[in-house]
């Protein structure tokens, strides 16, 4: 690596602006709603880009570049099969319940729709998952800086965590969202030249296809029909149902990390547009993360030179290879920005769930609002500290994405069953949510244990994760339905605003066509289909 003064200066300017936004918002945090929900006042384009950016952590940039090097263009499924349809679904069909019921968090919706125990189970599992995941972003950043500019692992973990802690402590969710918008643009400008230079180096798409170590790497769909033929070793059922339905809808439709950005929007149409606006850049992100991963593996098919034996190195190694000083500073800043936006998203989601759903509900209810505002700030410090500890746990896994998918499969996959039944079947009873969710999580744990001790085997960890998600979802779904049939339904008037068939549909007739969620979603899905066909 070859950073010079100019690169360090660019990074330093970034830190000044990130902290500056936090300080500028410091005086505006007067109530807990300001701190946790930005006072529900933010325009749709800002919450949309923040929605996109909060998900752009280590998972996106290093994880997907690593996966592209390991599994090829198959990884496009994470975008065009998984994310985009799920984002359209949450915007059109689910956001009206989240935003319209005035809940402050996803677990709070579960309390209204089901009961207190369902909410508490979800709040606790979400809090644990979020803390673990936030460590992933720290880990990724620290590994990177150790490799690139020889910063010791622990010192970059502590320094970068501190910056995130300060700007959230000062400006709460607003500070996190505003920084996510800045980070979004930095990520785009930081990685786009890599796609251009990488393609130029291998001789365009034709050259790339010829240089890939496995011809299957150049296709998204062509090898899906037989598990043995694609690099991930997974068949069409596992991919479409496991990834495309359970894992993706479980994440995009129920994970409070992203939903929280929608809740901060200024009105219902803005809340509905939040995931839809996010879906537009999301569709084109494979260009910025998957393409560099493919170029890396085609330049270094044995993974021993450029990649140094680790797929996780794909993206930083490409930055080092192609970026001269100056642009290198922008590229490093983009990496920092992506880690921070991911970590900050987790921290703001955690402090809200902790404060409203655990602390205010079970530990210390009935205090004045300022007490909970203070608790949110304390929770921020706590979450960052645990994130630091987690960064060291992640060192044990050899691929970030597998680790994350494992966590999602434990907690998010069954949750989607609970939401699907809760929102779209009014018969679903209050008790059934808890038992369905609990048995779904236990099924995931059981499946993982069997896989871990090799009682059942899969061709790759990723395949195991997809099937674990399917098992968890199906168990949750079936148990919820069965328990519902043996318990009392809830009164219909209690479910208005919470269940699809009992809630008046949002009337968007007075909006221009380009602001109507339904029309936007159809347009986005059409472009997504075209992308799938081009890169078949």
């Amino acid at each position, binding site marked *: 690596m070859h950073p010079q003064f100019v690169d360090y200066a660019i990074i330093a300017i970034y830190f000044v602006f990130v902290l500056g936004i936090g300080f500028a918002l410091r005086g505006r945090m007067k109530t807990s709603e300001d701190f946790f929900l930005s006072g529900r006042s933010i325009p749709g384009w800002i919450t949309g880009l923040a929605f996109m950016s909060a998900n752009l952590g280590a998972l996106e940039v290093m994880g997907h570049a690593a996966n592209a090097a390991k599994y090829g263009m198959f990884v496009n499924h994470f975008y065009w099969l998984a994310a985009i349809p799920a984002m359209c679904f949450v915007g059109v069909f689910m956001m009206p319940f989240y935003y319209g019921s005035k809940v402050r968090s996803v677990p709070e919706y579960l309390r209204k729709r089901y009961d207190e125990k369902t909410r508490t189970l979800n709040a606790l599992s979400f809090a644990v998952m979020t803390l673990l995941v936030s460590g992933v972003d720290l880990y990724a950043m620290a590994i990177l800086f150790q490799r690139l500019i020889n910063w010791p692992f622990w010192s970059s973990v502590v320094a970068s965590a501190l910056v995130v802690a300060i700007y959230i402590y000062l400006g709460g969710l607003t500070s996190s969202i505003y920084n996510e918008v800045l980070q979004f643009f930095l990520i785009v400008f930081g990685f786009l030249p890599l796609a251009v230079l990488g393609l130029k180096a291998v001789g365009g798409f034709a050259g790339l296809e010829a240089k890939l170590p496995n011809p299957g790497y150049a296709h998204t769909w062509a090898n899906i029909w037989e598990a043995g033929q694609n690099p991930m070793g997974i068949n069409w059922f596992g991919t479409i149902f496991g990834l495309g339905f359970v894992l993706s809808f479980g994440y995009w439709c129920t994970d409070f990390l992203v939903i929280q950005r929608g809740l901060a929007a200024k009105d219902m149409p803005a809340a509905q547009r939040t995931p839809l606006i996010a879906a537009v850049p999301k569709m084109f992100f494979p260009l910025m993360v998957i393409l560099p991963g493919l170029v890396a593996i085609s330049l270094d098919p044995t993974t021993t030179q450029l990649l140094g034996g680790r797929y996780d190195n794909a993206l930083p190694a490409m930055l080092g290879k192609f970026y*001269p000083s*100056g642009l290198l500073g922008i590229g490093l800043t983009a990496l920092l920005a992506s880690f921070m936006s991911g970590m900050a998203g987790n921290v703001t989601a955690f402090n809200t769930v902790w404060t409203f759903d655990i602390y205010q509900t079970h530990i210390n209810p009935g205090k004045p609002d300022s007490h909970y505002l203070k608790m949110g700030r304390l929770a921020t410090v706590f979450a960052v500290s645990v994130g630091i500890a987690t960064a060291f746990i992640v060192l044990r896994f050899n691929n970030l994405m597998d680790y994350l998918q494992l966590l999602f499969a434990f907690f998010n996959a069954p949750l989607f069953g609970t939401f699907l039944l809760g929102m779209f079947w009014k018969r679903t009873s209050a008790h059934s949510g808890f038992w369905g969710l609990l048995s779904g999580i236990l099924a995931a744990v059981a499946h993982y244990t069997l896989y871990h001790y090799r009682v059942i085997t899969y061709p790759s960890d990723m395949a195991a994760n997809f099937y674990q998600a399917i098992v968890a979802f199906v168990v949750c779904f079936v148990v919820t339905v069965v328990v519902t049939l043996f318990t009392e339904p809830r009164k219909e008037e209690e479910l208005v605003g919470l269940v699809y068939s009992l809630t008046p549909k949002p009337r968007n007739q007075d909006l221009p066509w380009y602001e109507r969620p339904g029309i936007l979603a159809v347009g986005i899905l059409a472009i997504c289909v075209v992308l799938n066909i081009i890169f078949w």
Partner: protein
Amino acid sequence: MGLDIRLPIGIIFTLYGLILMVFGLLTDPAIFERSLNVNIDLWWGAAMLVFGLFMGGLALRASRQNRP
């Protein structure tokens, strides 16, 4: 919410654009061997500068309109 996020975005991108362009013009051209002999700092700096001025311009226009 008071703070228009387009303003800090406009400023930081204008600043980065200028830094990259000046550095790209003054530095030893040998470093651009890495980027396939394209002076990527100059060109990408110009792109960032244009984006920064655009965002800053939007923010200024909005603040003028809000003032009575």
